[in-house]
């Protein structure tokens, strides 16, 4: 089965606040596990 998982926007995301390095690293780890 396939699912789309949507990240809902927030004030930060709409303001163009970019993810910090730590979040990028944690997200990278998460994406590794996903794949």
């Amino acid at each position, binding site marked *: 089965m*396939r699912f789309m998982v*949507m990240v809902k926007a927030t004030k930060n995301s709409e303001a163009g606040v970019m993810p910090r390095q730590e979040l990028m690293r944690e997200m990278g780890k998460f994406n590794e596990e996903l794949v």
Partner: protein
Amino acid sequence: MLAGEGLQPTSKGVRVHFAGKNRTVTDGPFAETKELIAGYWIWRVNSLQEAIEWAKRCPNPTGEEGQLEIRQIFEIEDFGQAATPEIREQERRLREQSKQLITQSK
């Protein structure tokens, strides 16, 4: 994970409105933050429950209180008779072609 991308803020986006034959283009930003999307993944899993378990483990993507919405994707089989053999073959071919495009574009 089959795909995943971050979406730039709506200040850089537009909406194309369809009404009959009319098309209207409206520039962002769009005010209803609660209805907007900042990013997406496409996952292949065995059940909604499995998707939920993965979603709970996700690092909070926006750094503040937020939400993930999970929606199942229609497969061609779900369209039943409306998806004729010609349409199914076309769908198969288009998916194959777009896979090639993805490989080439990286």
